């Protein structure tokens, strides 16, 4: 019956093509993660993707629905995104739990693809962070940065670590981890040390931060790799510039204003842009089409809100991972934004949105 309705042409776009293009855009970050974190990164990525797809298949079967969506790439993408936000040392059962929760709690319980309120990977990451704060906030020393305690290119060492924990390698957690730049700065601030001194204590270099040679979760360290992916998505028109640009500009602007007034206690814009999960969230998490607004104006409002919350949580909040919380909080406001930020319809000039 539906075939009777015009139009009888289609542009050729599909959900699978869209999801695959985002996976391709994440490949540079994934490659850098393997370069820095060796087998840990690779095992985590593969494990999370497989578990996500399996969980989706099981959930759909239990709900009595067709298994076709498993092949549309959205579960695989969720797995990849989740893995990239995890610290390199994530015990296998935590990764399992996170993947299952991402698909079940973050997506299928709402009704499947297109109906979730929150970004599924982000929702799972936040649940993991709040449930296991210690594991989720310690960062394995990456390869090619200083002298790491473990050889992450040794497969059996990495497998043992993931399955049995650092005790299997006769090492304590402290010996193999270090603080991320953002985490270090926050600790120093709480001890009253000025920002510039804190950076000196850490031996921080902006170039390293840009390229990714720093501690952090496996996918978020390299701003360069993420920028490659982001620009690819923008060029393909898979995402539009409104969210990432507004998000990053808001953080940069707030950081610029406050750090020029008090440079000791407020980080400068470049530091904010390169530190933590901001780049990953701005290009890949906040831009998730299902949980972000539909209209350009709405997207600008959303990006602004994310930027404001990210900067505020990082500066004054107790939790690390400000970017993730900011996006999750803004996800709640999306239906409201969608209603009020509709464009002006042709012929209704001067009458507002209704």
């Amino acid at each position: 019956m539906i075939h009777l309705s015009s139009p009888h042409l289609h542009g050729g776009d599909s959900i699978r093509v869209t999801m695959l293009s985002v996976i391709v855009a994440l490949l540079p970050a994934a490659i850098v993660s393997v370069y820095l974190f060796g087998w840990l990164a690779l095992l985590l990525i593969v494990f999370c993707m497989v578990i996500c797809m399996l969980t989706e298949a099981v959930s759909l079967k239990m709900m009595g629905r067709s298994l076709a969506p498993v092949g549309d790439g959205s579960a695989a993408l969720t797995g990849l995104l989740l893995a990239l936000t995890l610290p390199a040392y994530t015990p296998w059962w935590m990764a399992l739990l996170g993947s299952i929760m991402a698909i079940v709690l973050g997506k299928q319980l709402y009704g499947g693809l297109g109906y979730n309120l929150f970004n599924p990977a982000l929702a799972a990451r936040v649940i993991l962070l709040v449930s296991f704060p210690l594991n989720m906030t310690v960062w394995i020393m990456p390869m090619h940065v200083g002298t790491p305690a473990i050889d992450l290119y040794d497969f059996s060492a990495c497998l043992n670590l993931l399955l049995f924990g650092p005790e299997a390698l006769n090492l304590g957690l402290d010996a193999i981890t270090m603080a991320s730049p953002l985490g270090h700065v926050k600790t120093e601030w709480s001890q009253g040390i000025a920002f510039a001194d804190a950076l000196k204590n850490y031996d921080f270099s902006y170039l390293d931060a840009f390229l990714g040679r720093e501690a952090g979760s496996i996918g978020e360290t390299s701003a360069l790799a993420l920028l490659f992916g982001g620009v690819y998505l923008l060029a393909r028109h898979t995402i539009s510039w409104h969210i990432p640009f507004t998000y990053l500009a808001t953080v940069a602007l707030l950081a610029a204003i406050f750090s020029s007034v008090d440079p000791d206690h407020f980080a400068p814009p470049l530091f904010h842009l390169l530190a933590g999960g901001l780049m990953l969230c701005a290009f890949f998490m906040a831009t998730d089409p299902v949980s972000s607004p539909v209209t350009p104006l709405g997207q600008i409002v959303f990006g602004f809100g994310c930027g404001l919350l990210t900067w505020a949580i990082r500066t004054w909040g107790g939790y690390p991972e400000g970017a993730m919380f900011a996006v999750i909080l803004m996800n709640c406001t999306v239906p409201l934004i969608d209603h009020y930020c509709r464009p002006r319809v042709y012929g209704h000039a001067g009458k507002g949105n209704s």
Partner: protein
Amino acid sequence: MLHTLYKALGIEAASFPGGVEPDMAKITADSPTATSMLAPLFILPIKQHIGEVCEPIVAVGDEVKWGQKIARSQGYVSLPVHAPTSGRVIKIEEHPIPHPSGMGLPSIFIESDGDDRRDHSLEAIADYRGRDPAELRERVRFCGIAGLGGAVFPTFIKLLKDKRNPIETVIVNGIECEPYLTCDHRLMLEKAKEIIAGIDIAMHMVGAKKAIIAIEDNKPDAAASMRQALASDEINLPEDCRIDIRMLSTLYPQGSEKQLIYALTGKQVPAGRLPMHIGVLCHNVGTLKAIHDAVVLGRPLTDRIVTVSGDAIPRPGNMKARIGTPMRFILGEHGLDSFDDVHLLHGGPMMGEKMMSFDIPVVKSTNGLIAMRPESMKLAHRIEQPCIRCGHCSTACPVNLVPNLLADQCRNEQFDRAEAYNLFDCIECGCCSYVCPSHIPLVHYFRYGKGQLAQIKRERDFAELSRQRSEAREARIVREREEKAAKRRVVREKHPPKAEAATTSGESEKASGEGES
């Protein structure tokens, strides 16, 4: 505001927001218009326009001539129907019309006698500028001319010279933005002078001094042809009148009236109103040529150019077809005889209707017959998946709607919400469905929503009418009762009751007094 800036900088007007760029597939652009053979049987539905149906004025067995009126219009928004050739009326019965549901309308069947004898009752008017516009308008109405761009709105209604809504500019729509269709393109190449004459007549009828011929930039030869015709000696425009040619970027739906007006003038037609309310009128080139034929040659609308194209047609081309020719006949002339596994579209692929059979006649709105193989239609007919809220539909919408929210509301029967979200501003161009990665048939949901809202409105109006009638009846009963009581009072005053002492006789008089009233 942007438009003023563009004009100041001398840049071509920026087009409308959104739109899509399908493969234009103008494979018949270089095929000269052929003339169709005379079919043995012609089928004329009594309604081929927007408005009221016509009433047949011929009976079975009557002989008719080519151009003779065979059905008269009823009501204001209506147009007569004329015989496409000479012959005999063999039956008048219901027959399917070009509608996706396969519904039918009473149709007049004419068996052609092959002689093509014309009805010459209409005067050929060469000097139209010397005639009263009202007389010309009646000629346009009498000849059954409707908007040949596909909308088939009665043209004479759009040619009213009204002091309250003066027309400054006549826009000539030579855009033809639908893929495959080339009938307007060929018309501009082959009948440029007739089109210009038609523009002249239209300008005279509405009192406009300016006309703009809008052509998409994939048709430079058509623009050259029109320019040449404008410069020729045969066209004598009055001193203060001007006809310009403007090329617009190739984008679908550039030819949509509201979007075209915005692209050319920077003005938006206010919602619920018509272009004439902002001083512009839009006419298709085919309509203007038909106006020329009606006025200058005295010929009613009995034929039009049809583009026969698509990947299932062995010999695609453009054909001048008589209105009422069965589609099967025309498709056969282009090499398509077997209709197994052929999808036939009436109109263009973006807004056309899929036909259920091939024995349906060509009508005034048939600008194209596109026959496609099933494999080519697979992409457009994929199974619908959930909406991922990507927003591409909203970006593509030329009217700035948010289609995914609207479709959701229509599907969930929240019709008043859909109306608040401007459902009725949708022009059903199909850009949203074209770009949707989930293959959601958005236009289908909008049509459903509009239909339901119209039905709800009808029921509400009927309920309101019933309520008013019921209240009027109640008021009438109360009023009659009061009138009766008032009369009784008057009678009582005239014959006041006697004093208490005069007992029964007084009472009986009172009683008889009351009885009389």
